[in-house]
């Protein structure tokens, strides 16, 4: 009822302003007449009565304004009036307006773009029903904390023994080649156990999901398609369900299609899924090439589940693998932790960096507004003298700054949507949820919020300062001689700017030096001019025993015949390519030492691999052609492994088993230098090299490494043709020069570095603009003082030094504060640093020198202008 009255009365006033004003005027008039009449009734003359009433009640106009100004509709009217006035003022100063709007747009745009990239990864819940109930299960090594995804044997054991989960599933990558009427295409997919989609909580939109009956050895060939693949290759044909498609030369029946929005964070590129149909024979149940995901039962926390998993897993190990396992712990972690692991700290650091840029942008705009406020003092004083209250002035100025922020926000959103696109292009391959990055409703809301906040942030200080000034004094003085307070404020802002820019520059510098250090790391082989590619085998023709080995050796022979190729070899895992193949290396007991097991990278290679890679030999010999199937089993180990196991004793002639404890022993015939396998930053290098022909299970994908005369990259087409001359159906992927693999292995750091470089460059420019603005303003205000100084005999150099000293003092204070801030803030990027302390003096000194140089330049122009002041003309001008 009363709300209704509020709204209707307000609207009526807005619609009929004149009538409403007349009503107020009439009522106030009547009130005064009554008052005058009352005084007259006490015997005063009409004139005296009117005077008495005015004395008692104040001015009619004042009362009218007070009554008129109440009610919500008047707040709106004032707002519109303020806005109109603000627009007029900003249009009158186009340069100021454009510079301000662009500065704000840069800050808001960059921040919003980064937020839109960070939000889906760090803050949004994953796109599944009850996403907090999805967990991944890991085997954690007690020696180095490394994570292993789990084994089929453990998956079976946990399924039997745990009660925390509604569903558990294991999965592994799968890259089938689809053939048919169209071009053959290599697809990214997954082999998953039956409960995989139940764990994620997303059923297919067409057809059916996987059933337990699909997932057994020699089970039916069935496949589920992603929406994207379904539309791309089958035109979104709904009758696809039940039809066969050909994958790796075998027929698979399509049983379902996943919904459009289904996002598979566990393997973002996967487009099709087939049952795992795990082969438990051949003792492979305990190989670490699977990952495990599970859905928690309602009411079970991740912590509880984790405890149960550890207990159950150790019970399983005790029963089935009592002797082979080292110290391990089993944990369940929330899927979201899994997604953010690794990238989380880097993303937060980048978000922090961009917020600093936004703050610097705000500081700059604050500076501009204060300078503008100084120019407008006369206007404010006049308005105050005419009766505008302090709050009224503050409101007007805040309206102006919010309008500036809003314009900056609109332009900033355009900047953000461009920035998001650039981010997606730049993003390192390991960045999760790239598909979810974009300008959506959350991002827009974020943009709106920070726009408002920035408007308030850069508007408040100038508004308060303008409203504080004393109108009487201002009008009396009418000149720019009094300038104390705001100059201090602007000085403080420059200090802040320099300090913040320094934090960003130091971070960027540390990252830059880390990358330099990383690329200077000795990788253990010669990475220059080395062509690499992966050759895969697929299809039923490789079912026959030994067929893969035959294919690879024929292909290698063909490649070695290519003119220009000087050396070529195969390996099952290529350093720094993302390949990871780790096995247990079980050393036999020797008189000096007990039997012991270590985890080591397994390289199954063709003879000549170590030579082609130019991995230095440390002891005894490399592989030779006679180390083939049927010959005595031989192995070469890396220095790290030799040191770990033999502590300086001679390893040659000692024996070890690889993988299953009951496998055949290999005799160590040589020791070679360490090689970086996982990344430049990870120095773990325990490795066992064996001839591929002596490994019992053929690897289905091998990497070719090739050296040639001249540019090895130019050999790629001929090498490819040579492989295809043996079998034209075998896909060749990942053709790359080793140097670019090296660079790609640092993609995440490089991504962070690029962003930090961009942000710190922006910060540097903004800080320079800030110093320049303050110094220019200060010189302009002190023209008279400078004129007097030079009239009194100050030299040009003296005046130049005076102005530069003032600017450099501010810079110096900023540098001191910034250095302390950087020492604290670089904690956030500590994880990304390599070979450089976060307090690295070289970086700090270089950054300080850079900032000082820029500051001198920014002071230089105003100082030069000050030195050219003609004393006679300035003194006359006043």
């Amino acid at each position, binding site marked *: *009822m*009363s709300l209704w*009255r*509020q709204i209707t*009365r307000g609207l009526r006033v807005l619609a009929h302003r004149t009538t409403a004003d007349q*009503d*107020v005027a*009439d*009522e*106030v*008039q*009547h*009130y*005064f*007449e*009554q*008052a005058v009449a*009352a005084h007259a009734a006490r015997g005063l003359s009409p004139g005296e009565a009117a005077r008495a009433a005015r004395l008692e*009640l*104040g001015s009619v106009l*004042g*009362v009218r304004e*007070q*009554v008129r100004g*109440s*009610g919500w509709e008047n707040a709106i009217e004032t707002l519109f009036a303020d806005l109109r006035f603000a627009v007029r003022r900003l249009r009158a100063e186009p340069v100021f307006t454009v510079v301000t709007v662009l500065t704000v747009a840069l800050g808001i745009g960059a921040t919003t773009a980064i937020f839109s990239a960070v939000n889906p990864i760090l803050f949004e819940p994953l796109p599944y029903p009850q996403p907090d109930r999805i967990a991944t299960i890991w085997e954690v090594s007690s020696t180095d904390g490394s994570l292993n995804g789990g084994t089929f044997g453990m998956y079976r054991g946990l399924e039997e023994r745990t009660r925390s989960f509604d569903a558990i599933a294991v999965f592994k990558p799968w890259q089938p080649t689809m053939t048919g009427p169209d071009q053959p295409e290599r697809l990214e997919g997954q082999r998953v156990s039956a409960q995989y989609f139940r764990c994620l909580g997303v059923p297919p939109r067409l057809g059916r999901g996987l059933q337990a009956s699909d997932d057994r050895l020699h089970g039916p060939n069935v496949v589920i398609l992603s929406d994207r693949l379904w539309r791309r290759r089958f035109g979104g044909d709904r009758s696809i369900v039940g039809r066969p498609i050909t994958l790796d030369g075998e027929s698979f029946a399509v049983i379902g299609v996943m919904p459009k929005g289904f996002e598979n964070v566990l393997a973002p590129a996967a487009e099709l899924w087939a049952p795992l149909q795990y082969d438990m024979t051949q003792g492979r149940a305990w190989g670490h090439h699977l990952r495990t995901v599970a859905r928690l039962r309602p009411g079970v926390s991740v912590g509880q589940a984790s405890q149960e998993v550890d207990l159950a897993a150790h019970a399983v190990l005790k029963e089935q693998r009592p002797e082979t396992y080292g110290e391990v712990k089993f944990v369940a972690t929330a899927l979201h932790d899994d997604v953010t692991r690794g990238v989380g700290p880097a993303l937060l650091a980048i978000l922090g960096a961009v917020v600093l840029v936004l703050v610097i942008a705000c500081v700059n705009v604050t500076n501009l507004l204060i300078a503008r406020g100084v120019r407008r003092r006369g206007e404010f004083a006049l308005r105050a003298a005419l009766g505008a209250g302090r709050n009224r002035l503050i409101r007007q100025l805040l309206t102006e700054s919010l309008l500036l922020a809003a314009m900056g926000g609109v332009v900033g959103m355009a900047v953000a949507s461009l920035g998001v696109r650039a981010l997606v292009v730049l993003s390192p391959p390991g960045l999760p949820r790239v598909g979810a990055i974009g300008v959506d409703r959350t991002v827009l809301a974020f943009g709106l919020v920070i726009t408002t906040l920035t408007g308030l942030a850069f508007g408040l200080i100038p508004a308060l300062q303008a409203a504080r000034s004393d109108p009487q004094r201002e009008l009396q003085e009418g000149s720019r001689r009094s300038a104390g307070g705001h100059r201090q404020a602007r000085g403080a802002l420059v200090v802040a700017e320099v300090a913040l820019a320094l934090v960003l520059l130091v971070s960027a510098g540390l990252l830059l030096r880390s990358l330099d250090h990383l690329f200077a790391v000795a990788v253990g082989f010669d990475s220059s001019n080395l062509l690499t590619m992966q050759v895969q085998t697929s299809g039923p023709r490789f079912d026959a025993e030994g067929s893969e080995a035959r294919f690879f050796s024929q292909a290698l022979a063909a490649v070695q015949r290519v003119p220009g190729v000087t050396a070529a070899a195969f390996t099952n895992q290529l350093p720094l390519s993302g390949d990871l193949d780790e096995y247990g290396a079980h050393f036999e007991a020797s008189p000096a030492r007990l039997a012991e097991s270590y985890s080591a990278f397994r390289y199954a290679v063709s003879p000549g691999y170590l030579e082609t890679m130019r991995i230095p030999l440390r002891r005894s010999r490399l592989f030779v052609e006679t180390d083939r199937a049927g010959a005595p089993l031989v192995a070469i180990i890396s220095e790290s492994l030799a040191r770990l196991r033999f502590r300086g004793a001679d390893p040659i002639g000692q024996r070890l088993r690889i993988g299953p404890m009951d496998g055949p022993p290999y005799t160590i015939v040589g020791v070679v230098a360490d090689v970086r396998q996982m990344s430049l930053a990870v120095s773990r290098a325990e490795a066992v090299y064996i001839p591929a022909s002596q490994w019992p299970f053929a690897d289905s994908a091998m990497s070719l490494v090739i050296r040639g005369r001249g540019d090895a990259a130019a050999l790629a087409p001929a090498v490819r043709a040579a492989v295809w001359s043996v079998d034209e159906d075998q896909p060749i992927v990942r053709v790359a020069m080793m140097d670019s693999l090296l660079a790609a292995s640092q993609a995440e750091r490089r991504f962070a570095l690029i962003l930090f470089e961009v942000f710190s460059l922006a910060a540097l420019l903004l800080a320079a603009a800030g110093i320049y603005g303050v110094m220019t303003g200060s010189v302009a205000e002190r023209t008279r003082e400078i004129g007097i100084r030079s009239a009194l005999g100050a030299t040009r150099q003296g005046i130049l030094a005076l102005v530069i000293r003032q600017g450099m003092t501010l810079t110096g204070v900023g540098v001191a504060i910034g250095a302390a801030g950087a020492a604290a803030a670089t904690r956030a990027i500590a994880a990304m640093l390599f070979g450089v302390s976060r307090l690295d003096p070289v970086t700090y000194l270089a950054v300080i020198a850079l900032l000082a140089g820029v500051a001198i330049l920014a002071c230089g122009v105003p100082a030069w202008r000050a030195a050219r002041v003609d004393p006679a003309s300035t003194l006359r001008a006043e």
Partner: protein
Amino acid sequence: MDETNTDVIQGTLDMLILKTLSLEPMHGFGISRRIEQISRGVFKVNPGSLLTALQRLERAGWLDAEWRQTENSRRARYYTLTRAGRKQLEKETEDWTRRAAAVARLLKAEG
């Protein structure tokens, strides 16, 4: 010399207006006059505050307002208490009495 404070106690103006209007409909000056007289000059009402308050109370639904022609053919705005206004007055009176009594007790209490 100090001027005696004649400001209406903060927060009580609404109650005073409602009480005054509970006797009979009145215009703005009449209300102000009545408050002054009955309070024996302790309270003087500022016209700006009074008229703003009247507008607010009217919007809250506690008063109705109508324009009447005065004897010298001027327009005057008369205010009448509504039923909701009467209820509000009861509430505010009760509240005030309770609080005033508490303040009185506090002031009387011996330190």
